[in-house]
């Protein structure tokens, strides 16, 4: 159950330079599962989106261990294995196991995801922001056509599952929102 954080950081740094969609690393009782271009599958989603090396978010070892024993960390990352959703206060949210009162905002079409109106500008929203139902959360670009994605319900943004420039597929989860009651 012991993870050498430096080793883990080195692995992820190497991964970041390569092309892959699914990476499974097993050594003794350590099991590291990194995926990109997708989101966390239901069975791997008990404990949240995970931050990877180079970010300030806690590494997998700091998270609650999986009930089964070996660490199974499957960050929702694309295209680089970096942090996606972190809200330092409440437990992070993953698309596969949405807490009560949360809704998922999914991509209405396949395209390129942009979290800000223009490069360099602040993001439309970040985790912790309160949004109205008609608030624009991001843009999905398809062949130079910019499509705004709205929240659909008022509430607080609790997770952002993708990052700028990612290819998002039709119905891929983009945000989680804790709806205002």
């Amino acid at each position, binding site marked *: 159950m012991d993870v050498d954080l430096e080793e883990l950081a080195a692995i992820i740094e190497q991964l970041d330079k390569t092309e892959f969609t699914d990476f499974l690393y097993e050594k003794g009782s350590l099991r590291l599962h990194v995926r990109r271009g997708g989101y966390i599958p239901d069975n791997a989603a008990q404990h949240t989106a995970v931050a990877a090396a180079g970010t300030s978010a806690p590494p997998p070892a700091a998270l609650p261990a999986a009930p089964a024993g070996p660490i199974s960390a499957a960050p929702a990352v694309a295209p680089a294995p970096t942090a996606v959703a972190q809200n330092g206060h409440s437990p992070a949210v993953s698309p596969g196991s949405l807490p009560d009162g949360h809704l998922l905002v999914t991509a209405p079409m*396949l395209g390129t995801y942009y979290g800000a109106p223009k490069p360099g500008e602040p993001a439309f929203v970040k985790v912790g922001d309160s949004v109205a139902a008609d608030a624009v959360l991001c843009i999905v670009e398809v062949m130079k056509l910019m499509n705004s994605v709205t929240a659909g319900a008022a509430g607080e943004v609790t997770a952002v599952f993708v990052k700028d420039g990612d*290819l998002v597929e*039709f119905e891929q989860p983009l945000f989680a929102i804790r709806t205002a009651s």
Partner: protein
Amino acid sequence: MKHRIFVANRGEIAVRIIEACDRLGYDTVLGVSTADKDTLAARRAGRVVTLGAPRPADSYLNMNAVVQAAISTGCTAVHPGYGFLSERPAFAELCAEHGLTFVGPSPDALRALGDKLTARRLAESVDVPVSAGGTATSAGEVQQLAEGIGYPVLIKAAHGGGGRGMKLVENSAELAEAWQLASAEAEASFGDGTVFLERFVQDAKHVEVQIIGDRHGHRVHLGERECSVQYRYQKVVEEAPCTVLPEATRTLLYESALRIAEALDYVGLGTVEFLYDVSRDSLAFLEVNPRLQVEHPVTEAVTGVDLVREQLLVTLGEPLSFTQADIRLRGHAVECRITAQDPDHDLRPSPGTVTRWRPSAAGGLRLDSHIYEGYRFPPFYDALMAKQIAWAPDRAAAIERMEQALAAFEIEGVTTSLPLLQRILAHPVYRDNTVTTHWLNGLLTEKVPS
């Protein structure tokens, strides 16, 4: 450069294309609709991206989504398969604009061939036989043209396809009204009201030539197929070669196909279709299908050429790896299209869950399919489940092998066309090879004696 091919199709042909790419060492990315995420092709592709909702317009026909997905996944080429975007000049252009190789002929060739009147004129210009016909503008000219051709005549939409937009006219009294109606329908269906007249050939065989061209000016034909067993212009049983063609006619057929390929500087796979009037021993050009054809396996069976592999290589710039002299036809091949359609109810589609799927594994057979036990056959797309192909040294032996394959094929859960295929193969008219394109329509509308 390591190629990565975007497969812009579904079903059995997506599986076929992925398999060809795998053997060439190319990466594959498959675009799917939400209804197709668990298909066999999705399991075999290197990567899968969801394009959109199940309806074809929201996914497989959505050009922007397909091209965006191909670019974003680092693809170098797009294979459109058949149907969907395979014959759209605008799609081929969009691919080119974004540096993607479209696995097919040039947009100009697609445009010329998409307009049947233009294709007909092209054929005429290189001395390829066409049936009597043409087009006119004024009502008087149309009457005159029809008289010259002789009734019955067929009105066809220049941009129609698959039998849509056709009207049969028996005499001059019906002509003017039918012409206007056909034009209005063509305008509504295809966005272009151009229609033309052709002599209606009552009893003809459908014969087509497989061609392939590279980007270095080489063009080769790979023999002919006969696809006369059709229901409402949909092919049901195909075979290669067409055994009734006299040698001189076969030579004319090949030369005609190659002349058209040359006129278009054709690149990739194409099929030049003809009607063959057996009693008059005359050929008439029908159209060119600028893509991989559903029935390509029968040609592969008699030539030994992997058409999808060659199609990928030539469109990616390789010279053809064989010349005309290298092509030898050997034996006879038959293909049966097994569809989820109910032959007892006008071949209506019968989607559902396939609970049993046990093909024959005997020798001389090939099965192109995306079906497996437990597969939920979706209602959104065409009804093709599998293509059973049988090869043998001669036609009679190939038919016999096919009959055994169909008899042994166990399918449960959905109603299929298997009984109809067996009925066709056992029929004396099919056995004698005197089938013409209207034969199956007649067979299916026959009143069953009670």
